[in-house]
């Protein structure tokens, strides 16, 4: 029986392999090739058979991240040989990633693609922060990027009173996010939680407010949870 090659785009969740969906685990278990951005996803990729080929396409110590076209070439060429290819993306799959562009490019080449959602890194970070949104209000998840080809996030429009914002802040973007929200009328005392590595050993959570966020010198890549009330009356320890 001939097997048609497929690229399965899979949301790997926030990090804990136990947070993979059943479908994601099943696809990994049948994978011939697993393509990830970083060795950080190794624990998740471990669900693939030991014989499966592993490919890293993200930024490494000596190498920049692969350009989109090269990733698509890699995925398409393995699928073209009849292989089951699993492309792992962090979190839910699409939010803040280039998965949508990879899907478009693969389909344009006639490659069969499936899409499998994962647990969102945004809600995992928000849960880890110990905060909860005000019921009945909106929650916005956003990723900032200074790439000129990427449609910008309209932070001004996100400074709504009472709404909750979860932002993936790479590098020093937290300064600009804080400044723009404050300039658009958000209160300086609006609570902010910074979360690193949710659901992983060594999860770090820090609490501040929008004013404090803007004043922060440096921050590792963190997920910012801006605006919700904190759970319970106890201050963060």
């Amino acid at each position, binding site marked *: 029986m001939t097997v048609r090659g*497929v690229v399965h785009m899979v*949301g790997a969740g*926030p990090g*804990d392999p*136990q*947070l*993979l*969906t*059943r*479908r994601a685990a*099943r*696809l990994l278990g*049948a994978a011939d090739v697993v393509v990830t951005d970083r060795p950080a996803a190794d624990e998740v990729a471990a669900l693939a058979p030991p014989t499966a080929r592993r490919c890293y396409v993200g930024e490494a110590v000596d190498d920049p991240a692969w350009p989109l076209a090269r990733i698509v070439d890699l995925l398409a060429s393995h699928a073209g040989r009849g292989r089951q290819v699993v492309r792992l993306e962090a979190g*839910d799959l*699409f*939010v*803040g*990633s*280039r*998965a*949508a*562009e990879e*899907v478009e490019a693969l*389909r344009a080449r006639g490659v*069969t*693609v*499936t*899409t*499998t*959602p*994962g*647990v*969102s890194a945004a*809600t*995992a970070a*928000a*849960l880890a922060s110990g905060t*909860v949104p005000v*019921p*009945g209000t*909106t*929650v*916005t*998840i*956003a*990723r*900032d*990027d200074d*790439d000129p*080809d*990427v*449609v*910008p*996030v*309209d932070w001004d*429009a996100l400074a*709504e009173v009472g709404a909750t914002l979860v932002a993936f802040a790479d590098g020093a973007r937290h300064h600009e996010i804080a400044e723009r929200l404050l300039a658009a009328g958000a209160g300086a005392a609006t609570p902010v939680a910074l979360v690193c590595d949710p*659901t992983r050993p060594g999860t770090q959570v820090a609490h501040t407010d929008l004013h404090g966020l803007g004043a922060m010198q440096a921050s590792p890549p963190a997920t910012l949870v801006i605006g919700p009330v904190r*759970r*319970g009356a106890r201050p963060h320890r």
Partner: protein
Amino acid sequence: MTRSDASRPTVVELIGGGPGDPDLLTLRAESALAAATLVVTDATVAHLARTFAPNAEVIVSPAGGPDRESINRGATVDGDTLALLVGGPRAGERVVRLYRGDPWLHPAYAVESAILAASGVDHVTVPGPLIELAVPTMVGIPVTHRRRAMAVTVAPPTDPPRAVDPGRTLVTVADDADDAGGVAARLARSGDTSLPAAVVATVGGSPRTVRRGTLGDLARDRTLGAGVLVVGAVAADDAGDAFGADDAGGVGDGGEAGGDGAPGGSDPDSVRQLTEDGA
């Protein structure tokens, strides 16, 4: 049902069950359900509890949510559910509170976890797939896209934002009691009716069909039923053609297609408040 064994440290697990599709249960949720002796759950995901926790007593919480009524009432609390959770597990009992979607956005989670904490009952919270992200993803609709929208707003169906700005996707859930067309109509009253939009109709939390059009088109359609409404440039994405291919070739992934844990006849509407098993 309220009793406790103070001598034994016990844990209640508060777990996100995802939209209701058995394929989207996490491995963590699956193993917790397999070991559970008591599951307190929402009507919308009660079929998951019945399938994956066959040995557990399953109790459906009227706190439900995140349906429209729950959201209107704010953080809903049901006294019986809380008594079960706060009473704490007896020796040998393993209690799971299975939420539809992700706990963080569930209207009952804040109050239930706060009361557990105040009552000194150890509990852990486990995230699950968010309905608003997972259901569109299953049919290939990317809720963010670097050339179309890098922000996605998850809104309650009753109180949608006044406008959807460019560069941002709006997603909202219409439950069985509601209708995706009705939700689209509420949005259309205050928004731009020419915006691209899509409704992913769901049964038991699993996607069934995708209808695309402008927000105005969908607002006039009263045949859509329960589903997830996506508004913004990503809703026009051609990637949505994936649905047919995914559903036939990829989703089922071969031999296991529909074989394990398919919701079958467990229509959420017909789920009774208390189950027979163990009662």
